């Protein structure tokens, strides 16, 4: 069972250009796309990813899925896709400055590209630069450790970003995941 919460806010931008994608079947897959104004009338990256996932085979590596995704979305879209399988392994792939951090053994660390073993209770946050640049690792970790679920964790982090920026800092997008 994976608990998750999403946050999407246009900030002080005219529109919300980022995209957040979450799918629970067949494996838990989450993606955050850092959008751009010039692509507002193009095909949604989240939709493209869902189509790519539909067309993929069960044994396909995340790298293969992302290669298919890269062919269909603009080159300069930054994103992070992660997939958690039944054996609690997370496979993630990052393009650009969208970042995932994991609360692990009393520390907050950046989730590396590739496969990483998880254990029950591990918490991950994926977010765009506008979001995580207004947070510290220690703040994210403290918020994770005092939260009973992902919604609470997200609320605490949004409060931190708000204390610093009043949410006037461009599009804000994040996904919190608790394994």
């Amino acid at each position, binding site marked *: 069972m994976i608990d998750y919460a999403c946050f999407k806010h246009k900030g002080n931008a005219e529109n919300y250009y980022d995209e957040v994608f979450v799918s629970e079947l067949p494996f838990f897959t989450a993606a955050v796309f850092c959008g751009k104004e010039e692509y507002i009338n193009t095909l949604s990256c989240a939709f493209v990813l869902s189509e790519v996932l539909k067309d993929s085979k069960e044994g396909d590596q995340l790298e293969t899925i992302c290669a298919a995704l890269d062919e269909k979305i603009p080159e300069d879209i930054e994103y992070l896709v992660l997939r958690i399988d039944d054996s609690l392994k997370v496979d993630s792939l990052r393009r650009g400055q969208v970042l995932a951090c994991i609360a692990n053994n009393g520390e907050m660390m950046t989730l590396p590209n590739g496969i990483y073993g998880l254990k029950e209770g591990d918490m991950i946050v994926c977010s765009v630069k506008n979001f995580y640049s207004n947070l510290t690792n220690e703040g994210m970790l403290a918020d994770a450790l005092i939260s009973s679920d992902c919604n609470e964790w997200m609320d605490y982090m949004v409060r931190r970003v708000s204390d610093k920026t009043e*949410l006037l800092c461009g599009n804000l997008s994040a996904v919190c995941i608790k394994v």
Partner: protein
Amino acid sequence: MVDLSYLVESARLWFFIGMTVIGTAFLVTLYFFIMYILKVRKIRKVTSSGGGYLLYCDAAYFKGKGKRKNQEDSLYISPIADSATNGTIFAVSDGMGGLADGQVISRYVTERLAEEYPYSFEDTEANAAKIRKISDEVYEKYRLGGGATLAMIHVYANAMNFYSLGDSNIILVRKGTATVLNPKQNYISYLVKKYASAGENTHEAYINKSSKGLMDFVGNLNSKVIRTSSPIRLMEDDVIIICSDGVTDAIPVVTVPRYTDGAATAIAEKLKLRIRSAKRKRQDNYTAIVIKMDSSLF
């Protein structure tokens, strides 16, 4: 001839029931034993140091009345001699201004914390329950007519749990960056959530005059004690400052790292001097405990 078959059958039945009860009790005990071992191992993994040495706490504190008539802050530090077995508790309580008996209540809170010592490092919910009980006791006496905040940390080996009620601060300074670890339980949190979920900016949340009002504090009934469910790993040269809002009103949190060079006593001196030199007209009571994590006594 007496027919003993009934007795034999009955004995067999009781033997079966007895064995089932013993077997179930054994399995339940085994389950809890395994869960305990797993939990202790998890805690030990965080509390053990990567470099093979333990950090120690270099601590100092300071307090001042500011422009107030009374000192309504109070602090508690558990016996340092017991730190190897029970860890060390550092706590600051700040009597709520404008309400009755702030001085009495904050002192009551720290005295009750001392009475409840020692605290388990593993079972943070049990510790939160102790704090909740203290809060309920204050509620019984003052019925929301008085209260206090509480910021408390429990340092054990190279790790820390924290507990908080109200808006006092637990600041961690690491690598030149200061982070307030505990969220403030004031009305701003509610407003930020409201505006953010509506897709608006949160400027209004901060200009609202009553937004700094506390939604939870010691003295509230069945208060929600903020607590870490598992510990934060501490590093060498980390500085932890537990303080009342009189300190952060005078020294913005982002500037705190400027004063964190040297030993804990030196840091405390610098912070106190900074507050005094600010000469704020409405300086509140200020109290802080400064803890520096160090690997060597010399």
